[in-house]
Structure formats: C-alpha cells, structure tokens
C-alpha cells in the first residue's frame, strides 16, 4: 500500500518536468482561455499559471524568496520597489516588437522610466458599482463618493453596502472624498479620513474584496466599492442568472484610483526566452482585446481597440474621456514609517 502511494506521489511530481513550460504568476481570471490556447499553439509550449489575488500576497512570497516564475503581472506602482530590490531583469525591447502597440500615455510612468523593467498589460479603476434598479427605487444619488461615505445617503441603503478590504483603497477613497490626493500621508489628513470612515462604517455590511461580486449579482448587496473589472462581471453574472436589474459603474466626480497592471520578468526566470514570447504575444491587439471582452478591463493597447465589443467601449468608467482621466491617480508605494502609520489607523478602524 505504501509503495503504491510513493509511486503515485513520484509520478505527480515528475509530471511537469519535461515540456517547454512558461510559468506565469498572475491575477485570478486575468487571461482569457482563448488567448491561452492561441499562445500555446503559436509557441508550441505550455502555459502554467500560479495565481494571486492581491499584490501584497505576491510581494510576500517573493520577499521570502520564491522562485520559478518566468513572468509576473504586478500593478505598476510595485514595479519600482521590485526593481530596487533586484528582483527584476531589464527588458530587451528588441525582443518586444509589439511594444509599439501601447498608447504613449501609458508608457514611461513614474514607476518605471522608459519601461526598463515592465510593459503595460491592462488597467482597472477602483470605483462604485451599484444595483441600478434598487437605487432608482430608493432615490439614492450616484456620481460621488458620498454614496458610500455620507451617512445621510447611507441611511437608505444601510447594511447593503460593502467596501474593499484594503487600507490604501479605502483610505484613498476617503481622502479623495475630502478633496485630498489618494497618496496623501499627512497624519492630520489621515485622521480626517479615519473619522469619515468611522462615521460611515455602521452602515456598511462588510469589508469585502472577494465575494462582493456574487453578492451584487444575487441582489443581497446594492452598492459596492470595487474594481471596474469585477463590477462589469457582476453585471454579466446578474444577466446570466436572469436577474431583473443591471449593475452599473459610477466613477465619482472627486476622482479615483487607477491601477495599471504590467508584465515583468523576474531575475532567475527559468525560461526567459518563453517569457519574451509570452509578453510579445500579449502585446498583440487581439490578445489584449480578449481580456477586455472577457472582464471589461481598461485597455492601453491601440491595436486592440478595433477588436473590443462596442458595448464595452461605451462604458465611460472603463474608457474614460480626457477630462475624467485627469482626475485619476495611481497609488504610490509607501515608506516603512508611513506604512506603520497607515496600518495602525486601519487596525483602529477595523477593531471598533
């Protein structure tokens, strides 16, 4: 009996030793299955994904020394820190001819000058998602962060609101509501943000970063603070389930957080050759459009625009105009003292 077990164990261990495999460390559901199929055919190799659902999870694992990934897809504000710690290899742009497909406004960000280490992948905006029918019924206004922070508005939707379980996102939204930058680390302003949050907290159902999509689709929750991709999929889910309401995006007028995700190659990647193939493939128009069509992600790729479904292009929260874009900010990384301050405030908020 024991021998059989050992054999089975060994066989499953050696199962993936042989083929050409490219290991991608990516967000959940962040590549369309069609894209994976096409890539595997075009490179005659296998794509193996490992998943994370939060940048910090990925950072913690890499900080502890995890290896074996060929491509990682972090959010761009993390690229600076990863590069400074020597975790990334500089990219050879000659191996990435499709880089020219990316719109110039998304290249050369403050986190990675001249795209030394990363190339853009997809984008999302953190905003408000809501049950259109329910909110119309109750006469709740949308279009501002007040929908989740103003007790007068929250009265009508008490216990039906969730916010993200992320200190930077929730504090960022509160800071924006108060008119500050999402990256404001002035202790006085942070205390004000804390007060705002504590006033609104009794009306919130939960801090939720995962199941809020299902809750929206099933009608249990009516307003969420969430990512634009998720909200798009919540709408799809509700429609597929035959619900009588639609889920809509609302980009608050005070502004919001923009997340630009990027592809990087870690130092010590086992197969950098396949990594370049993968990145170049994902920079192609159709591949990029596949993702947007699947999850409603923002798209920085010029060549992809013609492949994107028209109904998605109309959603202003996913394809914001010039004016709205100026109000979007990207989160910056923090210094250890700042992180400690923010975390203490966050713990205080959650402990009450």
């Amino acid at each position, binding site marked *: *009996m024991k021998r059989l077990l050992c054999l089975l164990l060994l066989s*499953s261990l050696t199962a993936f030793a042989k083929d050409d495999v490219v290991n991608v460390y990516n967000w959940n*559901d962040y590549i369309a299955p069609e894209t994976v199929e096409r890539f595997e055919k075009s490179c005659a190799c296998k794509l193996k994904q*490992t998943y994370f659902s939060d940048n910090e999870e990925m950072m913690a694992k890499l900080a502890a020394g995890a290896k074996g*990934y060929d491509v990682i897809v972090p959010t761009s504000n993390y690229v600076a820190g990863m590069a400074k710690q020597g975790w990334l290899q500089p990219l050879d742009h000659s191996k990435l001819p499709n880089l020219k497909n990316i719109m110039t406004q998304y290249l050369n960000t403050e986190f990675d000058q001249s795209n030394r280490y990363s190339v853009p992948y997809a984008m999302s905006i953190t905003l408000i998602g809501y049950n259109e029918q329910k909110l119309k019924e109750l006469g709740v206004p949308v279009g501002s962060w007040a929908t989740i922070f103003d007790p007068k508005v929250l009265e009508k939707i008490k216990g039906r609101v969730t916010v993200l379980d992320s200190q930077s996102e929730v504090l960022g939204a509160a800071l924006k509501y108060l008119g500050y930058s999402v990256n404001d680390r002035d202790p006085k302003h942070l205390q004000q943000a804390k007060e705002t949050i504590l006033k609104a907290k009794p009306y919130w159902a939960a801090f939720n970063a995962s199941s809020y999509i299902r809750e929206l*689709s099933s*009608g249990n929750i009516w307003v969420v603070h969430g990512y634009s991709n998720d909200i798009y999929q919540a709408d799809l*889910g509700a429609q597929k*389930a035959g619900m009588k309401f639609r889920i809509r995006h609302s980009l608050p007028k005070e502004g919001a957080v923009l997340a630009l995700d990027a592809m990087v190659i870690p130092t010590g990647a086992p197969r950098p050759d396949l990594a370049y193939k993968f990145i170049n493939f994902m920079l192609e128009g159709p591949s990029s459009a596949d993702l947007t069509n699947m999850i409603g992600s923002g798209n920085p790729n010029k060549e992809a625009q013609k492949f994107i479904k028209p109904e998605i292009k109309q959603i202003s929260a996913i394809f914001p105009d010039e004016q709205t874009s100026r109000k979007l900010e990207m989160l910056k990384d923090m210094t250890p003292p700042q992180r400690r301050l923010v975390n203490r405030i966050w713990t205080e908020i959650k402990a009450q």
Partner: protein
Amino acid sequence: MNRRSRFLWIASMFAFAFLYAPLVIVVVYSFNDSRLNAQWVGFTLEWYRKLLEDEEMLTAAWNSLVIGVSASAVATVLGTMAGYAMYRYTLRVLPILVVAPIAIPEILMGVSLLIFFVAINLTLGLFSIVLAHIAFCIGFVAIVVRARLAGMDDSLVEAARDLGATPYRAFRLITLPLIMPGVIAGALMAFTLSIDDFVITYFTAGAGAMTLPLKIYTMVKISVTPEVNAVSTLLMLLTLALIVIASKLSPGTLRGE
C-alpha cells in the same frame, strides 16, 4: 431507551444537523441550474460535466489527495511515536516542539518555512507542501495519542514483558491495539487538515503546483460557479470511498482488534 440515552440522542441529532446543514447546501447547489450560488433554479448535471473537462481543477484535486494521504501517513507515524514518547519519557523539549506548530499563526509558519526552504535550496513543488503539512499535523496526532494513553494500565504490558516478549512485540501486540482508536482519530484529523490547508500551502507551493484549496481560492471572486460545489462533493465521496476500501482491505484495523 432510558431517559439518559434519549437526551444523548436528541443532543447528537442536533449536533449532526449543525454539522450537515452547510453540507446539504453545498451538495444540493452542485445540481443547481444557476451560475450563482444564491437561489435554487433547477436541476442539472452541467457542473459535474464541466468539472470533468476542467484539467486544472482535476489536477488540483488529485494533488490534494496525494499530498493529504502522504502527509497524514507520515504525520501519523511520527505523531504516534511522539505521543507515546511524551507519555513514557519525560523529555522537556518534545511537548513544546509538538504543540507549538499548532499555536504558531499559519502565515508565520508559511513564510518562515518558505524562507527556510529557499535557504536550503529545496526545489519548491508538491514535495515542499508535503513536508510543510507533516510539520503541523504531527502535533494533532501526538496530542490525541497522548490523551488516549493517559491512564493506561501498564500491568498488561509488564505481564507480557515478564512472559518474555520483546518491547517491540509488547508494543505491537498490546499497546498499539489499545491506542489504535486514538491513532485513527489522529490520522483522520491530519488528513482533514492537509487537504483543506490554504495559508501554509500558498507559501510553500512551487510555481505551477496547485492544490484544491489554492484553486478554489482563485475562483472565489467571480467564477465560484457550482463547479466548486461539484468538486467538493466529489472529493468528499472519493475520500469516503478510499477509506471504506482501505478498511475492507485490512479489516479490524479500524476497530483496533
């Protein structure tokens, strides 16, 4: 049935109802003709069909099973030895080493094990997961076996020794059968802990190594379709089948005869 047993029966029924309420939902909804796990719509076998086509999910389930069996087997052996040693010999350090892995927060265990594995250049993969699981399962087995041994009558063992049995024979023929229910209980707990572990597995898994809890965690956001219910139901039934087969192959082991 006297008054005492009736009370026991009612209390136990309540306990069983509590244990099975969520499970009923899981199983029933695996046949639900709706992508959302919210309301019952209609009956379908769609999700089971999808499951059988989902290679990643099946691999993950298989890996979880293999890891679970290996880790719990080794942990049971080591844990029984530890439990017996704690009972028999007064070693100061063993109880602490045994209990502490249970107390240490999983994140800490996961991160520190990862650092350690990287430092000793161990290739991460399924094997590293098994090693990590054994570490935290030993304690559970040891504590149960120790409790089972408490108050055991040593005179039987002494009698056997007097009659010429070697310590090993005495252990095998007298002690082991007596503690077997404890060993089995420990093994069941270790297996359960292993196939359901998420945090430690997350950190010690190699690139591309996937277990069921990891896979399901990735699906939690959007695609928690009833496919997950289907795989949970199947995994349960499969494990049950394995145990029934194992007990038929070595009859009497379970009962400690």
